[in-house]
């Protein structure tokens, strides 16, 4: 076993896994990592199950000291990680030793980075999940963002054994461009009949800007207003999903993210496909977005492709080398 302690938490660092499934009918949100692709990749790089708990950093990473020898991996937004002030790469396994200090700069591109440690961050599971829900004050460490001196038990690496270090192949590292609108693919509806033809056309052609009001609950967008048809307020509240594009009376879309509330009453013109959500949540206020429509069939094929990517991760998508730990 090894341990690590937070020396400086950064602006918003939380423990996250793949979300709390099974509690929505009691009012618990799903939550979990905003960029699920990056958390899964980080976990696989250190030999964890994809659903192990890692840390989610926002804009800037935390400073962390390690006690004992272990393996870590950092993925997601490029945050210039360093061990003892020496730069280390992201998207690959890094061996850390007793007393090593991990630190970060601010994000060059993207917004959220992930740290996985061998064995995961050992915090209590609530309804099967270790993820932090800030609004519910639940999960992670006392339901809050991390603070100085928070201490975690993590998995260690024994002396005199060999470990496998993996590096994700360059062509598979998601590239977050910031120089133009990112395209989010969506499946139509479920409430497309609440919008006029004109409103629908606006939605699929206009360019939207991420507003300042963009967080773990939802991304409010600014841009051309989407016209409703008839009464927008007529919808009966229903369960929501991550990626739902709600359009309230003011016509400006809100995309629901990980910690969205379980139920809502605004009509949803479209729903962002699961594998495109990481692109959105790496956007910062001021970044631009366009929406595109694809069929449900296509969306599910893409999701299955991503699932096979992770199934074959070690076989096809990483370069491996074995090192002997003294």
């Amino acid at each position: 076993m090894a341990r690590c302690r937070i020396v400086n938490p950064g602006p918003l660092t939380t423990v996250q896994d793949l979300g709390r499934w099974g509690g929505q009918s009691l009012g618990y949100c799903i939550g979990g990592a905003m960029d699920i692709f990056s958390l899964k990749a980080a976990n696989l790089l250190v030999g964890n199950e994809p659903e192990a708990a890692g840390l989610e950093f926002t804009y800037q990473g935390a400073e962390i000291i390690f006690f004992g020898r272990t393996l870590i991996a950092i993925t997601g937004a490029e945050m210039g990680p360093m061990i003892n002030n020496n730069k280390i790469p992201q998207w690959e396994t890094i061996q850390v030793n007793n007393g090593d200090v991990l630190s970060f700069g601010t994000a060059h591109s993207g917004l959220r980075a992930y740290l996985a440690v061998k064995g995961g961050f050992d915090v209590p599971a609530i309804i099967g999940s270790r993820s932090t829900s800030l609004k519910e004050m639940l999960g992670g460490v006392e339901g809050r963002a991390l603070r100085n001196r928070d201490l975690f038990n993590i998995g260690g690496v024994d002396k005199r054994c060999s470990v496998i270090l993996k590096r994700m192949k360059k062509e598979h590292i998601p590239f977050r461009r910031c120089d133009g609108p990112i395209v989010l693919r969506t499946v139509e509806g479920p409430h497309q009949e609440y919008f006029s033809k004109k409103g629908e056309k606006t939605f699929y052609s206009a360019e939207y800007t991420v507003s300042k009001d963009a967080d773990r609950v939802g991304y409010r967008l600014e841009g051309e207003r989407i016209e409703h048809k008839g009464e927008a307020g007529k919808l009966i509240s229903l369960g929501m999903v991550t990626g739902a594009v709600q359009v309230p009376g003011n016509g400006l879309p809100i995309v629901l993210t990980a910690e969205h509330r379980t139920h809502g009453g605004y009509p949803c013109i479209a729903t962002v496909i699961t594998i495109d959500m990481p692109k959105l949540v790496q956007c910062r206020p001021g970044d631009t977005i366009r929406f595109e429509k694809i069929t449900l069939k296509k969306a599910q094929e893409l999701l299955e492709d991503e699932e096979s990517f992770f199934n074959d991760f070690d076989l096809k998508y990483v370069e491996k080398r074995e090192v002997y730990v003294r």
Partner: protein
Amino acid sequence: MNERGVYNKPIIRPFGDSCLILEVGDQISYEVHLKVKRTYFYARDRKPKGIKEVVPAYSSINCHYNPSEISVRNVEAFLQQAFEAKGEIEEAVPRRIRIPTVFGGEYGPDLERVASFHRISQEKVVEIFTRGEYLNYFIGFMPGKPYLGGLPAELETPRLDVPRTHLPSGTVVLYGKQVAIFGLPQPSGANCIGRSPIKVYDPSRENPVLLRMGDYLKFYPIEKEDFVRIEQEVMSGRYQLEIEEIREAVYGKV
């Protein structure tokens, strides 16, 4: 469709690439609620591999699934089967739960607003409000928070123009036709008419969520002194909830 809004055939539509919505009706009514409840309990207890979670609402049920484990066709067929299921379904027995509440003043700053909106006295609002019972259609939004219906028409009040940024847990609100009691502190644009020392959500309890889908809440007025006493009893675990099971099936007046 029957006269209280239950469809003869459900509408099933996709909500993104990993969820289907089953719509059993098109209004908020007791009959639609019963249909949702039966369908939900059936689906929850028999969900095949690949279905991650089913979540009820007023007139619909969301079914989250993993499309690489189960095809959308099979999820549709399962939901159809749940909708049509006949015979015994293990459902939660509805309960009547009495909720002591301090109305008005600092505990219910919007009681005055509701009273003046309807041009009646605050006492009258409390009298009308506590006369009825409120059906918990489902739990959602925040942990333990019920979506309550059954507000008498003469108390229907629009939301505040400017939401309050912080209302404590236990807050009792009404907005439009709806009523709620908060399990956690939250901002809200609803009219806050009172507060109860009862915790509908308490993470330190073995079952943090107090209420079940289909329960009825009966609010009754208490004084500030009672609030403090009951709150202490609740905190120390000595408080006995006033709770009874409703066995008779003809409880449809909402």
